[in-house]
């Protein structure tokens, strides 16, 4: 009996010892790991989206702010295939794409954003089918709002879902985060972004949030900085309305004494609000395949031949090089100028003209004859002095510069010795190989208006963080060596262009405008119409450049837009001064 008792006792001891050893292994050897797993079970990390910084015009009108929106998020560890395929049907996102978005798995089961800024209809559908969608949640996030839609498409730009490439570059982003793609949104991404907060909440087995985790403090989101632009919203709106009828066009206005961009419009535009929600591909395709290129910022990226708007500069160069005097009379214009066996055409028969009259009437024949005396190296050197071969360093991305022709360039283009002075004749009237962006042209005129100094253009006036100014723009002067008495002649001529010449349509009773029309040849399509002008002519404050693609002769279409803008500029200036 005794032996049996002992045996049975041993069996009991062995059984309990197995349990004891296993307990030791779980609680001591692997205890830390299980403690972590237990936390993972109950703790959910929630990202509190930081509201993006707002963007205002110079007078504090909000141009980009935030509004509440619905976000659909999924907790990868708590969902299942049937829920995902159901969700895929509701959101119209294909399954593989849905899975791709769920990929990153965090240390704590946290909701991963699947789709942002969804409609309330979809939210209602998801809430109704709650029981079929484990691990799927809806929540409210602040999202960008552009109250003026396309008006600021090329100035503020837009934000959109981060791409894989962008994600790879900066690991502080999460998939489906928004990131600035163009314009101010892209250039000032770091300032506008803010810092997302985190909150740890305790959840029960059904994934219901019980409350904040007492051990961990909530890290509140820090909203992005607010940006005040130099843009004048009234002017911008007006510029948009006036230029919109021209499918492809650009308008830029600059404050001459600071370099502040007052308005910047490129047509066609797009509604930047479109890229916040999951964009349907048909809409995207129609934007991308639009031959007018709505994403193309014509103000800073499109280079056109300046046409006659370049004549004042050719005149300046000719005066400087003493090729002509203001009184020089060339062979009278009879509607063209014969060079070699070819006739270079003028748009009218102007007869005898001096320099000022030639600018005023925009006579090609006169400038062909300057061209005859011009050397390509001289021109190219002059252009470089005018900094036409350099970007303006405006504070939005995508700036391009036009082309400054040089001897090498012409040799490359036509073959060495295969081009004649005829090329120079064309260049002298602003056609041919010389191209400028509207921004460059506006700056060129700012430089003329301001006696050889202009300011680097900029859009951001100041940045505020929670009401404290943390950055203020500091205008940067750029000096160009120009003879002021010669400049005076040119300026007189530009005033006369509006008073008596080709841009009489731009006249205003109360303010004198100086400027120049231009026609950029665009064979075989209709010409582009230019007008660039500054005001007041006697003490210039503001310069505007307008290009209307395929709108024909410059004076007719483009000049009135500038005069309307000038009037609005001075009206609003006076009304603000009275406030």
């Amino acid at each position: 009996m005794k032996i049996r008792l002992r045996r049975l006792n041993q069996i009991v001891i062995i059984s309990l010892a197995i349990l004891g050893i296993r307990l030791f292994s779980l609680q001591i050897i692997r205890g830390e790991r299980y403690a972590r797993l237990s936390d993972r079970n109950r703790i959910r990390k929630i990202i509190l989206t930081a509201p993006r910084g707002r963007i205002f015009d110079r007078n504090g009108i909000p141009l980009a702010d935030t509004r509440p929106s619905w976000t659909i998020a999924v907790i990868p560890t708590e969902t299942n295939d049937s829920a995902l395929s159901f969700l895929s049907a509701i959101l119209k996102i294909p399954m593989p794409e849905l899975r791709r978005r769920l990929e990153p798995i965090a240390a704590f089961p946290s909701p991963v954003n699947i789709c942002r800024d969804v409609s309330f209809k979809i939210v209602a559908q998801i809430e109704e089918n709650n029981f079929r969608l484990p691990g799927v949640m809806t929540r409210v996030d602040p999202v960008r709002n552009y109250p003026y839609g396309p008006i600021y498409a090329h100035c503020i730009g837009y934000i959109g879902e981060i791409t894989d490439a962008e994600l790879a570059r900066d690991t502080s982003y999460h998939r489906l985060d928004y990131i600035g793609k163009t314009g101010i949104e892209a250039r000032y991404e770091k300032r506008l972004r803010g810092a997302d907060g985190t909150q740890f909440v305790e959840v029960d087995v059904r994934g219901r949030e019980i409350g904040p985790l007492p051990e961990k403090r909530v890290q509140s989101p820090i909203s992005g900085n607010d940006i005040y632009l130099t843009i004048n919203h009234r002017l911008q709106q007006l510029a948009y309305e006036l230029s919109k009828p021209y499918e492809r066009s650009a308008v830029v206005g600059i404050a001459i004494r600071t370099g502040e961009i007052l308005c910047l419009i490129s047509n066609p535009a797009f509604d930047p609000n479109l890229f916040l929600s999951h964009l349907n591909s048909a809409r995207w395709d129609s934007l991308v395949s639009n031959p007018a290129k709505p994403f193309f910022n014509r103000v800073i990226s499109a280079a056109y031949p300046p046409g006659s708007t370049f004549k004042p500069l050719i005149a300046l160069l000719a005066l400087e090089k003493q090729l002509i005097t203001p009184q020089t009379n060339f062979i009278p214009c009879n509607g063209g100028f014969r060079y070699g066996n070819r006739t270079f055409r003028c748009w009218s028969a102007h007869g005898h003209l001096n320099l000022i009259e030639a600018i005023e009437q925009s006579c090609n024949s006169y400038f062909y004859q300057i061209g005859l005396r011009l050397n390509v190296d001289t021109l190219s050197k002059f252009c470089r002095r005018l900094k036409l071969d350099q970007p303006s360093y405006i504070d939005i991305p995508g700036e391009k510069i036009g082309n400054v022709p040089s001897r090498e360039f012409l040799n490359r283009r036509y073959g060495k010795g295969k081009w004649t002075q005829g090329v120079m004749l064309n260049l002298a009237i602003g056609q041919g190989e010389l191209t400028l962006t509207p921004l460059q042209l506006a700056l060129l005129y700012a430089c003329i208006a301001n006696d050889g100094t202009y300011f680097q253009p900029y859009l951001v006036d100041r940045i505020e963080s929670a009401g404290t100014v943390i950055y203020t723009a500091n205008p940067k002067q750029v000096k160009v060596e120009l003879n002021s008495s010669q400049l005076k002649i040119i300026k007189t001529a530009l005033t006369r262009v509006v008073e008596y010449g080709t841009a009489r349509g731009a006249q205003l009773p109360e303010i004198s405008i100086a400027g120049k029309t231009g026609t950029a040849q665009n064979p075989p399509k209709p010409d582009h119409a230019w007008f660039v002008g500054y005001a007041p002519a006697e003490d210039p404050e503001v310069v505007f450049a307008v290009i209307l693609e395929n709108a024909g002769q410059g004076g007719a279409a483009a000049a009135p837009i500038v005069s309307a803008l000038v009037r609005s500029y001075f009206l609003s200036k006076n009304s603000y001064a009275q406030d």
Partner: protein
Amino acid sequence: MRKIDLTLILIVTFLIIIGLIAIYSAAGTRYLFRQLLFLPFGLVGLLVAFFTPRRIILGTAEILYILTLIMLITVLIWGTGPGAKRWFAIGAFNIQPSEVAKFTTTVVLAKYLSYRRNLKLDFPNIAGPAFLTITPVLLILAEPDLSTAISILPAFAAMLYWQGLRPLHILLLFIPPFSFVAGFSIYFWIPFFILLAIIVFLRMKFLPAITTLIISSAFGLLSPIVISLLKDYQRARIKNFFAPWLDPHGIGWNAIQSQIAIGSGRVLGKGYLKGTQKRLGFLPNRHTDFIFSSIAEEFGLLGSIVLLLLFFLFIHRILLTAYKTRDQNGALLCIGFAAIITYQIFVNIGMLLGVLPITGITLPFISYGGSSLLVTMTMLGLLLNVGTKPE
């Protein structure tokens, strides 16, 4: 009449108090009060078993046994339970006949085996007790409730051993059912067969050894044949029967959550009422089958070991009673009950620790539940009866 075993009463008191503390933590006052309500019933069971002369108990053993079988049959017809027919719902209470069967089967086996000392493995010796055991086991299997059905077998084996049957012979006795069950999966059957072959060739002569293996193989082959005769839904049921731990959260979710709860308790635990796994509902049935996980989470290794030691002292005390008593029948009752309780402790805690698959089995004295408490308390009463009043 000898002195009543106060140590045993003290240990059980401790265990019940631990149980009440744990039930409160796991499920709140509602379940605590209900368990407190069950206690008097348990005490009544204990007192009745203690004061009733064993003569009478043994005299009515067969009647009790037959009544139990009737209950087991009727529960198959009118019973309820989650996915099975396990209990009668009477008002707010559930009566679980399989719990009663553990008790009555042990009593009836104790009565029959007490007539035979130095048991041999032959038909007249074994057939009767084996039949008495198998009948309720099969009825409980039919509910289906595998773990409770099996819980009667250790009692049977332990009592056979106590009455002198050689361990090898006990093993041989259990070969056919084991082989049949293992035969459902080739991955179970092959290791089982190899292990058996080793034991058999070491301990037996060649011919009987071969015979044993052939019998084993025959039963092993039987189960694939049986399976092939079944319909698809029946096969699915069998799969579910052997793997009840397949739950809606996916394979092993409950087991994993239980291990996370236990492991995260570490040395001293998270503190009373502070178990997050328990509180936030990651532990299923946290006041019944999974109560040990909750205790281990809140009281850590220290608390768990204290509980295991109390269980050991309790079983050790019963075995000592069996040894001290000169009465065959009383000793067998002790051995049978000790085996059942050891089995329950081992299987319950073992499944929570991930040593065994998850099945529905309660932890004696600790888990919430009236039937379980009533039956264990009655067993205790009978044990005290044996310890104090030798016949």
